[in-house]
């Protein structure tokens, strides 16, 4: 932490897109910098236009833009590409895209015939626009790192989540639960570090049109269950999982996710749910009128990653430790 005071600020530039100004402000404040002056407008025909209000020649540029918004996700992506391109043509020395929630990350494989791998396409688009480096958080599948030809630092919210669980939950009586089979690994890793047991829920699809049944593997009777996942979108899975857990005698159910996307009818579902708390990080802006919501601020981790990257220090410390 000593070094952060001596940090050379003469060539770091923080640019923020319109997707998550609050997070960008937090990062800037942590770094002791101000956000560079840029203007992002839309023409009346909805084309995006970018102007960069100060010189970034030979500077180390960081562009903060996350994947969010039911209506605007493509606009924000386009905005990011245009800002990158504008910086490239303005002779920035290095351009790093800080994308806390990588858009289209769930389309990462050909799981059905003729399904597109859109995450790959997004990676190629970023490179084509002129991006030199990417910082992101909790990629849906870490293989997405391999879609890029440029370096990608995939940070983890896990240390912050760990801290949250240790300090703000009933850890003595807790059990970790993965709401689907794919997340078992994530939960097992957390369980190891917290010395907790874990259980697993599996959505069984017996037949195509039959209502899916949830199978619980492991026992949760009388426990305080922590559902862990990388993202909460429509929350259908989480709500159903919490019902299943309560049916099996759980005392209470908390959900902890990294990316709280909460699209569609998520708000309604959460209001009607029996979840006692839903916790997410601020990788995406959350606009949710639900009193059980709690947030973990991960801007220190992103800020520290930017600082270390700029100063040419190792980032791996952040994989195991939460920045303050």
């Amino acid at each position: 932490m000593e070094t952060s005071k001596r940090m050379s600020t003469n060539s770091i530039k923080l640019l923020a897109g319109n997707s998550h100004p609050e997070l960008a402000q937090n990062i800037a404040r942590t770094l002791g910098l101000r956000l560079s002056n840029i203007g992002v407008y839309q023409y009346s025909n909805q084309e995006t236009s970018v102007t960069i209000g100060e010189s970034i020649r030979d500077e180390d540029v960081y562009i903060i833009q996350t994947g969010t918004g039911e209506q605007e996700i493509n606009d924000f992506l386009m905005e990011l590409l245009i800002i990158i391109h504008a910086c490239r043509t303005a002779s920035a020395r290095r351009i790093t895209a800080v994308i806390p929630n990588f858009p289209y990350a769930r389309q990462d494989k050909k799981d059905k015939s003729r399904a597109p791998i859109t995450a790959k396409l997004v990676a190629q688009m970023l490179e084509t626009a002129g991006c030199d480096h990417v910082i992101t958080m909790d990629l849906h599948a870490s293989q997405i790192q391999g879609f890029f030809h440029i370096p990608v630092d995939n940070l983890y919210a896990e240390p912050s989540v760990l801290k949250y669980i240790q300090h703000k939950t009933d850890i003595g009586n807790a059990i970790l639960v993965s709401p689907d089979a794919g997340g078992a690994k994530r939960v097992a890793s957390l369980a190891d570090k917290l010395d907790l047991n874990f259980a697993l829920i599996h959505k069984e699809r017996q037949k195509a049109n039959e209502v899916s049944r949830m199978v619980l593997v492991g026992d949760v009777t009388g426990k305080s269950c922590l559902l862990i996942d990388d993202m909460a979108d429509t929350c259908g899975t989480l709500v159903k999982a919490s019902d299943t857990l309560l049916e099996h005698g759980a005392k209470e159910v908390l959900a902890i996710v990294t990316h709280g996307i909460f699209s569609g009818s998520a708000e309604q579902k959460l209001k009607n749910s029996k979840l006692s708390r839903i916790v997410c990080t601020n990788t995406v802006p959350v606009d949710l009128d639900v009193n059980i919501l709690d947030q973990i601020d991960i801007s220190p981790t992103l800020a520290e990653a930017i600082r270390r990257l700029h100063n040419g220090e190792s980032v791996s410390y952040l994989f195991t430790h939460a920045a303050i």
Partner: protein
Amino acid sequence: MRKCKVFVGNSHPELGHLVCERLGIEAAPCTLKKFANGETSVQIGVSVRDEDVYVIQSGSPEINDHIMELLILVSACRGGSAKKITAVIPQFPYSKQCKMKKHRGAITARMLANLLIMAGADHVVSMDLHASQMQGFFTKPVDNLYGGPSLGKWIREHVEDYREAVVVSKNPGGTKRVTALADSLKINFAMIHTDRRRSKDLYSQNKDKLQLKQRKQSMLRKNKPIIRPGDFENEEENIILTNGIQTARVIKGHVVDDEYVDDADAIQSDGEGSIGTIGSFDAVDSEDDEEDDEQPEKLITLVGNVQGRTAIILDDMIDRPGSFISAAEHMVKNCGAKEVYVIATHGIFTGDCLEQLEMSDDIHKVVVTNTYPISEERIRKSKKLVIIDVSSIFAECIRRDHYGESISVLFDSLASL
């Protein structure tokens, strides 16, 4: 098939020729040899101009030589004006290196993908890629065929009373694969988790509780367990059976009971704190590294129930035996499993892996497909090994691809030809 040539590389000629046989064609003549200085030389003995070329090359023990051979073959066909070149790679080499394992780790699988495209491949066919996201490494189309249906078919036909069996994942990372098979067979699944020894206090606490005789394990055992050196009579207390989760200790790859004291134990406990921070740091890393040697003592946990049932351990490849053996031992000795089958798509069997699996009393059968070459001598010597032929799937894929038909039927969970 007109305007079509199939080249068979040296890595797995048996599979290549089986595919050709199924297609009813001869493998195209080519000379693959090595110069005295070790360089690989390829000569194509037939015109490939404007033809649809398929090159069949799998992973093998001489992995780098065969990758080079594949690249040179593809490049030679490109130079020979082939219309379209498809690399058929039943077992994709380096596929375990498909993400950054450690900090600064190389994503070698992506590099190999780039090399293939650069050499001139237009299309890649593989089976059960270690991670399906690997398809995104290529800028050209990739068809990832599934071995699951063939394995499922074998289970239905050969495992007695398979409806009562349980499919088990030997690590949390493979759970998705396991649930897919379990769903298609409509049977139950379970999961095994092996981690570094958690705080010993926690473990002994639980043990005390157990000694309060909440649960008697003796009823679990119908058969008398095999007594091995290091096992005591009171083996029943070797398990913590709390709420369907069974835990036991594993030392040097074998399940032991609580009284077992390892010489290295004292030293180990000193360093435990540091192992905690450096050892496994993220959800991704702890996956399939079988670090048996680095960590002498671990804790093995079964989540699920296999009592009195047949357990089927499923994975995408069998590389090293350690985790399979400890998982099988745990399930048979502590959790009351009837029989344990070890089933995987790719049987790589590095070193004496197959022999070790053979020696384990707890493993009933080892079932793999023929995507990876296994020497005839090993097959002959082994009594537990079963090899399923998947050449028909590759042949059908090549035929359909050549005629421009959809191959999605091959992805169908019921397809096993």
